[in-house]
């Protein structure tokens, strides 16, 4: 198997992959400080090695059933100079993936459709490739 490196994760029971290039690091974030009245997709702020990151409620962005309030596993990505922590259920692996177009005729729903750039397969399980920049950037654009 050959292809670009991708980080494999699960959100709301769905398998996703994000391009490793967009990933700054993978962490368990410490306590989250709320940022009241921010966009609903913002869980709050967290400090990460002397840097403040904005914690993104991935379930809310993707219109999934509300995720675990104690979820701490996150992908750190830098969008427009701001560090964001994108929360996920679990992180599995880093692997090269062959990215293909989303199968024709598959309706992903509006939220997914705006962030998915393609699909792939890993050990027989279908994956959607998510663009973190669109996922985070879409929060404000949709506002």
């Amino acid at each position, binding site marked *: 198997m050959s292809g670009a490196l991708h980080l494999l994760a699960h959100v709301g029971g769905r398998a996703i992959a994000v391009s490793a290039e967009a990933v700054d690091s993978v962490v368990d974030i410490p306590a989250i400080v709320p940022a*009241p009245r921010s966009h609903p997709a913002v869980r709050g702020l967290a*400090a990460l090695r*002397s840097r403040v990151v904005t914690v993104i409620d991935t379930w809310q962005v993707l219109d999934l059933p509300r995720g675990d309030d104690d979820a701490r596993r996150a992908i750190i990505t830098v969008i427009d100079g701001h560090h964001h922590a994108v929360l996920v259920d679990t992180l599995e692996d880093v692997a090269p993936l062959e990215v293909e177009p989303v199968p024709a005729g598959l309706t992903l729903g509006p939220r997914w459709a705006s962030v998915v750039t393609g699909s792939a397969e890993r050990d027989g399980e279908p994956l959607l490739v998510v663009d973190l920049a669109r996922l985070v950037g879409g929060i404000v654009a949709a506002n």
Partner: protein
Amino acid sequence: MDDLLQEFIAETRETLGALSGEIVAWEADPADRARLDAIFRFVHTVKGSCGFLDLPRLARLSHAAEDVLQSVRSGERVPDPALVNAVLAIIDRIGEIVEAIDAGNALDDSTEDQLLAALQGKPAEAPPQLVTPVSNAPRAPARSIRLSVDLLDRMMNGVSEMVLARNELARRLRDSGDATLETAIDRLSLTVAELRDTVTRTRMQAIESLFSALPRLVRDTAGTLGKRVSLAIDGAEVELDREMIELLRDPLVHIVRNAIDHGIEAPEERRRAGKPEVGRLSIVARQSGNRIIVEIADDGRGIDTARLVGKLARQEPDRAAELNALSERRRLDLVFEPGLSTRDEVTAMSGRGVGMDVVRTNVEQIGGSIRLDNVPGRGLTTTIEVPLTLAILSAVVIETGRARYAVPRQSVEEIVAAGSSAVRIDAVGDALLATVRGRRLPLVRLGDVLGVGDAIGTMLMIVNLPGGTFALGVDHVDDTQELVVKPVAPAVMAAGLYAGQMLPDTGVPLLLLDCAGVAAAAGVSFERVVEAEPEIEEPAPEGTSALLFEALDGQRRVIPLAAVERIEPVPAGSTRAAGGRWWVSARDGVLPLIIDAGKAPGGSDLAMLMLASTEAATGYLVRRALDIVTIHDDLLPSSNPAIAGIVVIEGEPLEVIDPVRLAGGAARAVKRPICLVQGLDGGWADSMLRPMIEAAGYRVAQALAPGEVAAVTLAAGDERATGGNVVWLSRDTATGRPQIDPQALAQALALAPGAGR
């Protein structure tokens, strides 16, 4: 070669900046040889460099200027205004060409011959341009090395990160409790702190680089308008953030131009007004804490607010009523309204495209404020206040809804406890109104705005915004910290409540509140406040004025001010007990005195409050009067009838004396019925009878003064009773002592009016 050229450009720019003040000074005093020499040196250096760098145009200009200046130096020519203007024009042109070389632009040279002709004293076809745009290129301060701005910024960012990393390390260390590392961390802390200071200072620049262009600006502006202005500059050595200096440049230029154009009058008008012909403009910079204050003061005509209002009312007739109701201060603030020009006619200076509204916006954008002090006819002082640096902010850390937030220190005017007696909170319609020492402010509950609770909180922060002031209710105020501010992500910014994020030593991120956003989110609109202001200006007297005093027992008590006529000193030893009550020898003779403790403490000077409600002048003895306070009618109840209630002042519960009770007691004391004791030997009567009789409210007398009538007479033996209700006491036949029938005595005493209270 390129390096040499860059060096030449930078150097010329630098010298030009320093020189503009010299030229003006030289014009004012053409005999000043030192100034002339400085200018000569400049053109001479330029000429030399030009030959070397092959810049023929610059060489021609500088050569011509050098020749003329040389002839002035040798006394062949006199530096008249025409000559000075011509030299200035040449130097300006040199600056323009240097900028053009730097930018790689071509510059039209068609007018250069005119400039040179003017220099030779020949009348030019077109008058030499007097006002030339002052170059806006950034000027490095004198005697410094040139550093790339980018490099400085990266250094500053690096140090900011280092401060945060140090904080993180210190926190981890605290958690682990490893004492061996502490010394190392302390040293690191110290070094980082020093480094931060140093790097912050590298960003600093003397405000001189901003001020050095002003003499020229003032001279040119005044010259164009036919006015005469003397400029005084002070505090040029004050340092502030390089970025800040750049951001201050435009507002300052605008204010100076305004002062000369609108403020300072033409010479003949000044003469008529009894002022010296030469107007005074003084520009002073000073540092106050981590703020820089720049004052621009002129002695011109000031702002005619009535005309300002009239002009605005003509522009917007709908607002006429509102405008006329404004206070003087608000009227002055109208200067900052967009699209306003106080000038009726257009002058050379008008139409520059920026009004005071832009100036204020620019100043506020950098966290500063601008204030006007107007004395009509005598002048206007504009005060700009800006923070020293943009990157580090002094913030008040507060707590609401179990989370902590930061508020910029500069916008917090005051912090008061919500429960303090100086604060009153009322529900007005759907809003809350806080009255802080008679000042009415809209109250915003931070918890409510953030959606984390609707309690007012224990503390009120009085927050100043450009448009007005409001009270912000928060749960707790923790402390003040100097923190590095970083921008927040757009998704958080969308809340409209935050201005940035910070990371204090605790390692828990802090959101910096944007006070204007908080006020807007709470629906606080300052336009309404402006309209309502005339009412606020004279608030109805709240509560009652009262005198706070120290009573004889050392306790602080309060008495309504209306009950006190005046306060008089009572020298030690001037009180006397006589006839069952106290008297004081005062200015007006001997006056009855009310003493709480029953006995005047001797040895020290006291004071008495002259009570207003008594018929006869009566004093109330106290240790000293302390203060006049305002008490509200909602007093806490008291079981003591002589106390009208309890009021809380500065957190201390104090008794409020009931003046009616006090005076009533005094009146009764004056008219105490007399109990005449006849035919009883003094010792026995004093020890046995007197306490009983006095407790019943009588005054014991052995004999009646003229006009006095005894209410009760106790008589023993064979003496004749003089009147009143007579009680005969029989004598014990064995001892000869009077025998008391307690029942008869009590009955007789109870009969008397006013007794038995």
